[in-house]
């Protein structure tokens, strides 16, 4: 008892704390009222979006991926400007030209390259390219070259970010069997290859949300029907469906319509996964007290779904959608391989890879495989982004 008085003396107090028989009282003040007012986790005091963003920012790889994807998607409308050649532009002198060397800061120019002479070696049946190293020529920046294009559907111009030098070519990643610039084709191919996933996801989203939502909200009979159709779709092999649906595309449709149909097909086959996610999310959210509270407040169903349930599962869906885009991009390449996807003159990564799908490319002209790199990069980026988003989604821990 007496030792309690020593509370003012720190050492003695500590000793009291350690003595089971002593009564130790700390000098810490206590104000019960402050507890009621003070914020406990002021670090979590932000809208969910802000919290998610805060958490997401910490995933460096995901952020980089996001920026990368954002950049390339933003660049898509300007591809004509950014690529030195038109994708269909053939250069008969550059058939199977290898990637060309560019030297920077030479002879007072930002970049120079050399004219190439090509001849066919009848012993190897390969074209041989020899640069004329005595004749450096400057790459032209912000210059006019190639066919006229319409920038953003507004301006007709043939101004390009950079152009091959006068009297020489500029095939940074080489040229294909018709002498088309692979670098430019990759950039143009990005347009279709990258949007195929987006459209597909939009479609599978629409179907998945509707059906999954119906199943999750109404349950019972609807749920059983949706579940069963998911099971059936999942057990059907994709390939024949692709075949059948692709065969149904009329022959004289333009590349853009075909492309759109391909996206639709990819989307039509992708929804079950999303529908399941939506359904289970719906089911679990229905059980949340705040949803029940809104119901008991007399909120109409629409309001409950739109302002209570949606915001809480949207982010999860965005993450899973992000993760399903890459499979669509890969799906497009597979469809192209089967001759069911896009058709020339459309340019897509899948088509380019399909062209490169023989030993000649692997063995003799490896630069034809260059489109693999962007496919992998984009797929990786989407995956990193999706993973990052998913990890960031639950910001309250």
């Amino acid at each position: 008892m007496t030792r309690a008085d020593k509370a003012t003396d720190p050492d003695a107090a500590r000793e009291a704390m350690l003595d089971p028989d002593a009564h130790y009282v700390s000098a810490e003040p206590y104000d019960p009222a402050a507890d009621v007012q003070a914020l406990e986790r002021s670090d979590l005091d932000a809208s969910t979006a802000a919290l998610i963003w805060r958490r997401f920012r910490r995933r460096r790889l995901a952020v980089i991926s996001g920026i990368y994807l954002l950049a390339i998607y933003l660049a898509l409308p300007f591809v004509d400007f950014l690529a030195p050649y038109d994708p269909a532009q053939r250069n008969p002198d550059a058939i199977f030209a290898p990637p060309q060397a560019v030297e920077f800061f030479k002879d007072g120019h930002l970049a120079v390259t050399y004219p190439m002479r090509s001849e066919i070696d009848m012993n190897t049946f390969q074209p041989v390219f020899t640069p004329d190293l005595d004749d450096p020529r400057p790459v032209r920046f912000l210059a006019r070259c190639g066919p006229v294009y319409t920038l953003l559907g507004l301006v007709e111009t043939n101004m390009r970010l950079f152009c091959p030098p006068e009297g020489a070519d500029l095939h940074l990643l080489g040229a294909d069997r018709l002498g088309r610039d692979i670098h430019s084709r990759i950039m143009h191919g990005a347009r279709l290859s990258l949007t195929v996933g987006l459209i597909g996801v939009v479609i599978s989203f629409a179907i998945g949300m509707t059906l999954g939502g119906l199943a999750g909200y109404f349950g019972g009979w609807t749920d059983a029907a949706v579940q069963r159709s998911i099971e059936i779709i999942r057990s059907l092999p994709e390939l024949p469906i692709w075949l059948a649906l692709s065969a149904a595309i009329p022959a004289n449709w333009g590349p853009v319509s075909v492309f759109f149909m391909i996206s639709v097909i990819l989307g039509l086959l992708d929804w079950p996964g999303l529908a399941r996610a939506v359904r289970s999310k719906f089911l679990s959210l229905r059980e949340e007290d705040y949803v029940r509270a809104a119901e008991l407040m007399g909120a109409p169903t629409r309001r409950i779904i739109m302002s209570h349930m949606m915001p809480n599962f949207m982010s999860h869906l965005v993450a899973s959608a992000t993760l399903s885009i890459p499979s669509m991009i890969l799906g497009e390449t597979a469809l192209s391989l089967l001759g069911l996807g896009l058709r020339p003159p459309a340019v897509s990564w899948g088509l380019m890879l399909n062209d490169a799908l023989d030993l000649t490319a692997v063995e003799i002209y490896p630069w034809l495989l260059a489109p693999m790199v962007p496919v992998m990069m984009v797929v990786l980026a989407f995956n990193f982004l999706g993973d990052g988003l998913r990890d960031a989604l639950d910001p309250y821990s």
Partner: protein
Amino acid sequence: MVKATPLLALEGLTIGFGDARLRVVEDVGFTLRHGETLALVGESGSGKTLTGKALIGILPRGASVLGGRAMFAARGAGGLPEAPRDLLAMRPAELRRIRGGRIAMIFQEPMSSLSPLHTIGDQVSESLRLHTELRNDAARMRCLEVFEQVGFPDPERAWSAYPFELSGGLRQRAMIAMAMACEPDLVIADEPTTALDVTTQAQVLDLIRTLQHDTGMSMILITHDLGVVANMADSVTVMRKGKVVESGPCETILTDPRHGYTRALIVAAPHVPAPRPEASAAPADPIFWARNLSKTYRGRRRGIGAPPPVIRAVQDVSLTIGRGETLALVGESGSGKTTVAKLMLRAEDPDPGAEIGFRGADGRELDVAALDGAELRDFRRRVQIVFQDPYSALSPRMSVLDILTEPLEIHGIGTREERRAHAAELMRKVGLSPEHLRRFPHAFSGGQRQRISIARALALQPELLVCDEPTSALDVSVQAQVLDLLRQLRDEMGLSYLFISHDLTVVADLADRVAVMRRGRVVEEGPAAAVFADPRHPYTKALIAASPTPDPGRRLDLAAVARGAGDPETWPEPFRYEGDRAPPLREVEPGRQVRCAA
């Protein structure tokens, strides 16, 4: 005075969290003697669990011990203490030998602390395999022995059972068996009974006490419940925000608390009230009532052709809430009390034949069971609910302002400005600062969130609030504050409450009337004071007897608990059930009913 070497002497324990080395436990110390129990008391976040875990080196990822010594003197052969060694400085392999063998831990949530994929026998005998020479049959025999000891009715069955096949109480017994298997010197019990019903808690506490007595082990009991402390501990260390605020022998702390926090804790702890003057016998002006409320669920069909099993969640319940009164509906989990609330709120439809009535301030009587459309919406305006889990009750996507104005918006009340002003008013009413309106729910503590929930429920100026265990997820001190708030609001606004709780003592001060439920039926109903003063039904008696209070003089009455807490089939006559048949509810006094024959 020569002191015997204590079992454990902890001093200066400091634990840091994360890269920032945020100190969550700072300079904590205590001494535990052989055979004694030390209670580590504090609310959630006080660092008491971390302290326990640090002793055996199982801190969660990100946390690390920054300083301190924990000298542990295990009982050696012949019961003589070995030379003390510092637990905090041991190599992992060395510590592993002590962990589970010499020091065992019992966790709070037995369901999630047991692996669902392994049998109880496997999990319990694992400690034996790790720390003793016992193998196979020998280990099995020892396990069965321990099962017997911890009170498993059928040890053989327990051996091959999976955790989900056991009731909560048995699961906790399994946890205890796991801890006891190697006859440790020290058991660290982390809130061992918090997740249990009151009656089960009493039995488990008693078990622990008996075991301790039989084996002479020591215990560190981590808890926030001073009632439990009073029943179990020799000495108490009170922690708050990672620091020790008060420590000393149990009696001293409970009877002579010096620190403000300790005092608050003691005040907040539920008490069985002293007998009060008799209140009104029956509600004179009923606002909300139900007659013959039943609810049956259809289970999953078990076989083709076999009829689906029927689950009777609520059977023939009749309740009446008087205007301005609080009716407490008390019962263990699964007793059907929440279902009753849902039925009365029309969140679910009752079986045909039920009658639910509501008479608002305007005097109009509503047949709630038949409401729909605009009338139902009007009813919902007048009756609001406060949920148990403060985390799930508020949408994380909405700011507090949105949450509080939403009910008004739904019902199209007021302009934007008015709604906003109303929200600020509500905040003040529940004791929060209106400045926090722009904040998001996750910034608030559980108690604060529960206040926001209450504010939301009040937004439409209802006449009646259904409170579904509004405080059971909160710490004791916070719980008391929220109860205070509710009481204050009732008095200010003339509200009526249907208050649902599993803990009789929680409602003691608030309730005017109490209805005790068990297995879907009301077993006793009457004025609160009368029920507390003179419980008639064995189950009610058990509930009261099982409630631990921070009064060293009042120990749990296990005999009473045992009489009333078992299955209704085991109740003494005339209260006993015969399968699905139960004795009728009889009025034993005016306004007082007990389910008994004759």
